[in-house]
């Protein structure tokens, strides 16, 4: 009985993110014009879910990638560029026969992982701060993306794209299924492994982790590499949705910054050591739903950025309420 208390306290951030998303999506759903027209039936609901999922999944993958780095008390300002780079690459090689396509997919994933690994290597062995490292590598990755696709273009294997952006059994959005699959296959084994716990340990206290014999370097390296991998899955999906590769600076930057917002909304602490990729996913989905809410309530799209900004501002300020309970002002300072 009392045991639940501990699990609850630990997962509080994630649960809060899930809660916020559920509330927002419910409001969205109940006010959706399609529901008004055709009522609550499986077809309509699954259509709405599919559209929402396809939009949200992109940010969800990038947010997952960011969360892995943030857990180790780092930050990745290149994640949007890895996303863009893999998108451009995919528009070249995820084409052709099934064998070629499969090879292309693996190639894209490998490149994503490599991007993450380079970040990790510079941070660990170069001993540079993550923020500075990833600013620089972000530029490099963007440059490569631009070299691959100076102009938007390319294509992607249509069958695969339709499969992964469509519906499974005509009900569940395939993109969500893939997202869930990635969580099960990548995140859960990682977070429960010794290396994964090591990543949390490093983020919580680098020094204590070292003194306790935690494999600090391995944990960080794996976290960064997996992060690149997850970003590349996002890039793949972007290609599936748009059928093109495009190296747009603004878009990449936006994904990076939004991923940080999603991660914070998802209960992952920027100081490291706390939070979960699942929370980041729901933070991303909630963030995306903000825009959808405006559409549904017929707000002038002109107001969307402001609305998004204000909601983000309120969301991050909520944490400040804990301050009122602080009785020893020294606790303000880490």
């Amino acid at each position, binding site marked *: 009985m009392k045991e639940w208390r501990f699990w609850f306290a630990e997962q509080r951030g994630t649960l809060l993110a899930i809660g916020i998303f559920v509330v927002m999506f419910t409001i969205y759903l109940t006010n959706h014009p399609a529901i008004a027209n055709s009522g609550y039936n499986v077809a309509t609901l699954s259509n709405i879910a599919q559209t929402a999922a396809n939009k949200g999944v992109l940010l969800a993958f990038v947010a997952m990638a960011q969360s892995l780095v943030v857990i180790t008390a780092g*930050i990745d*300002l290149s994640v949007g560029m890895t996303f863009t780079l893999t998108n451009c690459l995919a528009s070249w090689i995820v084409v052709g026969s099934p064998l070629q396509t499969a090879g292309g997919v693996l190639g894209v994933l490998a490149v994503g992982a490599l991007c993450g690994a380079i970040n990790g290597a*510079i941070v660990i062995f*170069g*001993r*540079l*701060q993550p*923020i*500075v*490292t990833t*600013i*620089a*590598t*972000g*530029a*490099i*990755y*963007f*440059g*490569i*993306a*631009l*070299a691959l696709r*100076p102009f938007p273009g390319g294509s992607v294997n249509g069958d695969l794209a339709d499969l992964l952006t469509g519906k499974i059994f005509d009900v569940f959005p395939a993109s969500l299924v893939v997202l869930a699959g990635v969580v099960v296959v990548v995140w859960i084994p990682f977070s429960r492994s010794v290396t994964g716990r090591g990543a949390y340990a490093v983020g919580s206290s*680098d*020094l204590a982790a*070292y003194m306790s014999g935690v494999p600090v370097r391995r944990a960080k390296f794996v976290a960064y590499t997996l992060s690149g991998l997850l970003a590349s899955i996002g890039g793949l999906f972007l290609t599936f949705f748009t059928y093109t590769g495009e*190296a747009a*600076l*603004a878009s990449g*930057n936006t994904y990076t*910054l939004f991923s*940080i*917002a999603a991660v*914070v909304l998802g209960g992952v602490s*920027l*100081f490291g050591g706390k939070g979960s990729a699942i929370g980041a996913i729901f933070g991303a989905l909630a963030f995306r739903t903000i825009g959808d809410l405006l559409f549904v309530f017929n707000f002038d799209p*002109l*107001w*969307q*950025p*402001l*609305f*998004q*900004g*204000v909601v*983000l*501002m309120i969301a*991050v*300020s909520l*944490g*400040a309420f804990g*301050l009122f309970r602080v009785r020893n*002002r*020294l606790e*303000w*300072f*880490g």
Partner: protein
Amino acid sequence: MTEAARPVREAASRMPAFLRRVDPAVATAFGCIILLLLVGSLYSRNFLSPEYLLQQLKVASFLGVIATGMMLVILLGQIDLSVPWVVTTGAMMASFASSFGPWGVILGIPFGILCGVLLGLLNGVGVAYLRIPSMIITLATNAVAQGIMVVYSGGFSPKDTASPPMRYLATGFIIPALPNAVIVWAIVGGIAVFLLTRTTFGRAVYGIGNRERAAYLSGINTRRIVMLTFAMSGGLAAVGGVLLAGYASKAAQSMGDAYLLPSIAAVVLGGTSILGGRGSYLGTVAGVILITLLQSILSVMQMPESGRQIVYGVVIVGMMLLYGRERLVR
């Protein structure tokens, strides 16, 4: 008990004695500037001409003013990611206010700067009093500023053009041959140096960046100083926006985007520690000039944008590996 891992200049021990007094990061940065000038002159004879160099200095001034604000915030151990849209807000609001007749023209620039200061205060209150991590509150402020400007401009590029004073400030010449923008940067820089090295405010900033806890227990009103610093950063970003708008004769939607990462890079390349508490303004000047020269060399070489980005990134990593590494705790 081990000491906290603060970046230690490993290069310092390898330098001859007289140079050791100079911060090795700053020395390296200036060295690279000379190197870039030499490389540039290989590509184009004009590169070392005074007109071209002054032109570069003018372009550098825009980044320089913005980087000054960023440096102050980084010295505190924080970061300001709201630069893109605060720059744009400053530019747009200054242009907007200037359209209200003669009084508008006079008060336009101060109004634009005021908007920047207010946005900076929003950041400052969030970081100092609500203890929200600066990375995230400045992101939110950036989004809010963007939202306000989008609503204001109706989604299109604003029709307000830069006022004559703005244009004069950015492109005029009070002193023949010396661009006004450079003078603006020099004044801003001079004030920054004075604040940081000769005032109680500057000491407090360094102290807070080093150990806010100790600064607080020494009786410093740390929260107020943090708030003011962010306000200054916002104001300076707005000044940068005003100059940029003057240069281009109008404000534009994404004008600030290209200044966020370069301003952080310039500060860091100049030897300021991203963790706070250490750095000199001279280094930031070097970093700004370095980045500006690098960007212009790459364009003189007619390198495509892709190559430029890659070179830009490699240079930053390379230089940081020279003098930005953490000490190995063993």
